[in-house]
């Protein structure tokens, strides 16, 4: 049997184990990678490889960035930073038609700047914004759609767990990826706001205008966003000027947040313990996803499958953007059927070399993949953010949420098209940092 065929059988087996056994993605990749390596080389080589990879991945300095940024997000969640961000955005935009939804996106954008997870962003903002929008008679189509899609900003805006994983898997600079994500996240937020604006123009009943607030109140509310902006400037600013590594940025951000929230008594012991537990759970999941991808990647590497696919694709006489379109379509469809983060980790060993073979800038390509991965988090039936919102507001029908998401998906697609036409939107800040 040829090595390429063994590689293909490995991928098919992996999918079978994933879908028919329901085995966690990280474990399934490790197991299939181990078995494939055993088949091609030997049992001794396979078990030595797995043992060494688990130990070296777990003890890798670069990966220690993961728990730190996740912890930062959970601290912000448990210390009420999100409520103050929302209150501020609400005071400024609440009196507009659809203003509460716009305020949610604005608060999402700011919260995403200190939290690296789309689920955490959706859960946090959902808990804060959904009751408010219900109070002011917002249609559930608009309220649920805003919260579900607003959460995706957490993935694109640095610090982002997805960007960290891509950086670690593809050996790209996490700092550059973080800096490259800033403008696309802002662009995506603006497109979401335009979507809300247009929807409320067409149907004003979707988001009736809220009560007006005086300028004094508006100015006063700005104090609520100071700490979030301070954390963002400290973390991303420090990275931008090269003051510290991403891991150190995470640690300093957490340290600062701990001091601020503990000294103002907004972080309770219960909140701290809960943050630690949730962080450990999510970090462990991410670590094993990365470990599994490395083990599976080793098996694929000995079959030479990624290189053969890349060589074959680069030999095609079609536009690289056609191939990019197909890759993005695969991610979109894949994201519908399995968790988008898992799908990303699974496919990076194949699709990243492919993109490089077509000469795509790695930072730009990584941001585009991140954008399409975020879409996976809001597309049915396996859109994790949808279920987060459903859990927060059980009275909203799943069908309503699916319908609402479709409006915002268009904004995501437009954002990707703009980034493809104007790659400088991604690259300008990393180039400035150079």
């Amino acid at each position: 049997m040829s090595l390429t065929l063994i590689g293909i059988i490995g991928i098919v087996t992996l999918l079978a184990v994933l879908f028919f056994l329901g085995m966690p993605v990280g474990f399934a990749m490790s197991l299939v990678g181990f078995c494939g390596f055993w088949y091609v080389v030997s049992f001794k080589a396979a078990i030595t490889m797995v043992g060494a990879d688990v130990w070296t991945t777990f003890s890798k300095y670069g990966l220690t960035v993961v728990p730190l940024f996740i912890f930062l997000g959970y601290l912000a969640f448990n210390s009420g930073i999100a409520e103050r961000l929302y209150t501020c955005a609400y005071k400024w935009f609440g009196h507009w038609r659809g203003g509460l939804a716009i305020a949610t996106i604005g608060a999402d954008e700011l919260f995403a700047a200190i939290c690296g997870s789309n689920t955490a962003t959706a859960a946090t903002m959902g808990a804060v914004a959904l009751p408010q929008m219900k109070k002011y008679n917002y249609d559930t189509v608009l309220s649920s759609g805003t919260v579900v899609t607003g959460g995706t900003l957490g993935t694109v805006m640095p610090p982002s767990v997805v960007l960290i994983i891509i950086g670690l898997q593809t050996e790209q600079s996490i700092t550059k990826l973080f800096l490259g994500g800033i403008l696309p996240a802002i662009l995506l937020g603006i497109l979401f706001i335009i979507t809300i604006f247009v929807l409320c123009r067409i149907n004003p009943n979707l988001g009736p205008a809220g009560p007006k607030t005086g300028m004094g109140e508006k100015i006063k509310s700005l104090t609520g966003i100071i700490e979030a902006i301070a954390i963002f400037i400290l973390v991303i600013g420090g990275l931008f000027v090269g003051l510290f590594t991403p891991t150190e940025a995470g640690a300093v951000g957490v340290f600062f947040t701990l001091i601020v929230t503990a000294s103002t008594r907004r972080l309770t012991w219960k909140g701290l313990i809960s943050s630690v537990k949730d962080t450990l759970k999510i970090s462990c999941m991410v670590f094993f996803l990365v470990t599994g991808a490395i083990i599976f990647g080793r098996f694929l590497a000995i079959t030479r499958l990624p290189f053969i696919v890349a060589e074959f694709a680069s030999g095609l006489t079609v536009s690289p953007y056609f191939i990019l379109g197909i890759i993005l379509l695969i991610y979109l469809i894949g994201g519908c059927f399995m968790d988008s983060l898992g799908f990303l980790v699974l496919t990076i060993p194949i699709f990243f070399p492919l993109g490089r073979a077509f000469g795509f800038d790695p930072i730009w390509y990584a941001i585009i993949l991140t954008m399409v991965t975020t879409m996976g988090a809001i597309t049915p039936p396996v859109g994790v953010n949808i279920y987060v919102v459903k859990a927060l507001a059980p009275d909203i029908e799943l069908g309503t949420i699916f319908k609402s998401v479709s409006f915002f998906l268009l904004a995501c697609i437009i954002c990707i098209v703009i980034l493809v036409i104007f790659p400088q939107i991604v690259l300008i800040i990393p180039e400035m940092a150079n």
Partner: protein
Amino acid sequence: MRHEANIIILDKVAKIINQMLLYIAGCFMMAMIFLASANVFFRLFWGPVRGTFELMGYFGAVVTAFALGFTQTARGHIAVDVLVQRFSKRTQRTLNSINYFICMIFFGLVAWQIGRYATTLWETGEVTETLQVIYFPFTYAVAFGCAALCLVFLTDFLKCLLEIQRGQK
């Protein structure tokens, strides 16, 4: 009945072990935060804290390995259950038991292999590059974390078998 009681005891033991490991993991994570922050602070004014780079990596290994069992008990790992959820309860239980059994064997092997590697590091007196201290205890910690995960899979597997047996009755 006796089997059931034994499985309940085993489950409790697994939960206590993983809860203890979780607290240790939490302490190591806090240590990572203070160590990295101290390193930034001291580097700005005096000089870097020696060995921060390698200690951060080893602490990170303990954090992850000791959280493995807890994450599994909390069903925190990403899985694709779209298809499995459409099967009957009986089929789901059978598939789960196969799943747990395979994972138990796999993580048992991984724990054994990393444990062997730790023993080699101990016997050869391998030390870290900067601080020149032994690091095999961290390697043993990772092996122990994998063994704790193996124990969780064992209890999950036995519980699944018990459920299948009950279903047949």
